[in-house]
């Protein structure tokens, strides 16, 4: 390894180092240490974690702007990792989501007095794994990074240690391991077919291998590999038909953990799938069948997510089905492979996906963290429990309503702009039927999102206690809502960034 390698990995190393710092700090702050004297409050851990996130953020900014150090956007560390702007864009999303979750869950975390250190260590380790995953450009690295993400996430889901939480952890573990096994089989087939594990070498060798006419994806080995890889990542991205674990895990896991999983975990899985598949998009047989495959997955995911969300009475389960539907909308962007952007290159697909993920991160965090603040105080996670929230906590109620309207896709929020961009990309690619299905789904989704907004703003409540969220919680929710309004009104701010960040096509 040389200096270039260390610079490329520096944000990931900083994130992993921060996890170790938190683990050590937790041990130092243990109660009854130093002869019964407390060495400080465990509450300080939240601030150490939050402020410590500046380190990976600054190092990632440094790589983006090239202030100091030797930098390259070519694969480094023997071709296993690429710190290009595509990876950095997703690293910013992951760091931001981690920071928001930590900021917005400080009061909630008080119930974990004994395992506060574990919470931060696990969430930061998972974030480090995700940051590695979005830049991984070699199959074994992808696998290792994925497991670095999944194993802490499973422990986090079970952290509350009551019946629901343990059950969520057990289900998450079994389905995560199953999806990893499927993914691994796919990766091994890709290796077996091409004899290489670096994505750039795989693509170079695929170009020399013959494609058979009439076989999907040009060859049975590639077909098997792509199907297994999509199935494996399908679990992580929570898309139908691999969505069964999502409602149970989101309901049983601590709410901030569900918030973290629903944005960071999903974004990193989308990023790595884009990196693998867009590398192979130049081969016509792959691109053609890919369009059909992802159009079908998108249809299934949107429809299943929205229809099942209609019947939910538990807010956490409803949000889980809502994220499944949102993942379906993102899949519409995947189906539009090869769609040309205004600059004439085939970047419209990934551009719309990245824009959607950026908007979705802000919006979903706002809704999830707002709900975390409420559930922590009322202990009621049903939708009916939100009734008349505006009388108890007006500001939070209005912010959450804006967040829900953005998830629905109401102008002028980012939810409208991202949906407009992603659906028009599909239409450009001739997938008009898919855009129609997506729009119909948005209408179905309006029913359950508007029902909640109506309950929050106009519902009756017997409970007249005012719910006072802490400053941290309000800040996190407000940043999320502000982000979804700003990105919706002035989309070119982030579209310009994304244009710079599409280095994979």
């Amino acid at each position: 390894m040389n200096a270039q390698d260390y610079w490329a990995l520096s944000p990931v190393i900083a994130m992993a180092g921060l996890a170790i710092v938190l683990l050590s700090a937790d041990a130092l702050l243990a109660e009854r240490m130093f002869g019964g004297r407390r060495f400080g409050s465990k509450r300080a851990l939240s601030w150490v974690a939050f402020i410590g996130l500046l380190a990976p953020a600054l190092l990632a900014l440094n790589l983006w702007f090239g202030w100091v150090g030797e930098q390259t956007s070519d694969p480094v560390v023997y071709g296993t990792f690429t710190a290009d702007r595509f990876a950095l864009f997703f690293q910013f999303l992951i760091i931001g989501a981690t920071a928001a979750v930590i900021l917005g869950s400080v009061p909630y975390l008080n119930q974990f007095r004994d395992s506060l250190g574990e919470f931060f260590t696990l969430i930061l380790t998972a974030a480090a794994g995700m940051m590695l995953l979005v830049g991984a450009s070699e199959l074994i690295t992808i696998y290792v990074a994925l497991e670095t993400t999944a194993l802490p996430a499973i422990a986090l889901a079970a952290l509350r240690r009551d019946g629901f939480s343990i059950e969520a952890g057990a289900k998450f573990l079994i389905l995560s391991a199953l999806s990893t096994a499927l993914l691994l089989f796919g990766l091994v087939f890709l290796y077996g077919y091409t004899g290489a594990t670096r994505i750039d070498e795989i693509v170079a060798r695929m170009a020399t291998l013959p494609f058979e006419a009439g076989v999907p994806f040009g060859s049975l080995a590639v077909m098997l590999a792509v199907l297994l890889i999509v199935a494996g990542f399908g679990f992580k991205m929570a898309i139908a038909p691999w969505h069964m674990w999502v409602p149970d895990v989101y309901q049983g896991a601590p709410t901030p953990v569900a918030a973290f999983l629903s944005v960071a975990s999903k974004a990193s899985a989308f990023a790595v799938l884009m990196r693998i598949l867009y590398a192979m998009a130049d081969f016509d047989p792959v691109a053609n069948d890919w369009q059909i495959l992802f159009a079908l997955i998108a249809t299934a995911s949107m429809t299943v997510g929205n229809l099942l969300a209609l019947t939910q009475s538990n807010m956490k389960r409803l949000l889980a089905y809502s994220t499944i539907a949102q993942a379906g909308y993102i899949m519409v962007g995947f189906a539009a492979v090869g769609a040309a952007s205004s600059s004439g290159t085939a970047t419209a697909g990934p551009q719309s996906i990245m824009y959607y993920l950026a908007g979705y991160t802000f919006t979903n965090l706002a809704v999830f963290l707002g709900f975390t603040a409420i559930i922590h105080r009322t202990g009621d996670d049903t939708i009916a429990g939100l009734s008349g929230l505006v009388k108890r906590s007006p500001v939070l109620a209005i912010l959450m309503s804006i967040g829900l309207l953005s998830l629905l896709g109401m102008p002028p929020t980012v939810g409208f702009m991202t949906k407009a961009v992603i659906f028009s990309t599909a239409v450009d690619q001739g997938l008009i039927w898919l855009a129609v299905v997506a729009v119909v789904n948005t209408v179905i989704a309006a029913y359950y999102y508007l029902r909640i907004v109506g309950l929050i703003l106009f519902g009756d409540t017997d409970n007249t206690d005012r719910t006072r969220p802490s400053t941290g919680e309000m800040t996190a929710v407000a940043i999320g809502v502000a982000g979804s309004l700003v990105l919706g009104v002035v989309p070119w701010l982030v579209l310009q960034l994304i244009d710079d960040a599409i280095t994979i096509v």
Partner: protein
Amino acid sequence: MTLEIVLVVAGALFSIGLFGVLARRNIIAVIMSLELMFNGVLVAAIGFSRFTAPAALMDTSGGITEAAVRSALTGHMFAVFVISIAAAETALALALVFAFYRAQQSVEITDASAMKN
């Protein structure tokens, strides 16, 4: 011994494991079935390494190149990483089974049905 035989064995192991994950009710048995799936992957990785990578070795006219050696060893590296991470996964799984047993007095997966709409 040909690549086909190795892949048939790998596929069989993988499929038996997949069946076990879907059909068994005891969580320990499900975890064992998951291990079986990972072992199927291992057999495939080693098989590909043995049968496809040496072809790259033979292509080189002037002896063994570094790239060829790397290609031949990649499957083994794959296997080593899969084994070590599967071990970590099993450790976490057993801890969760203990916690699950304490909460439910059972290790049957059908008892994991507390959460309904």
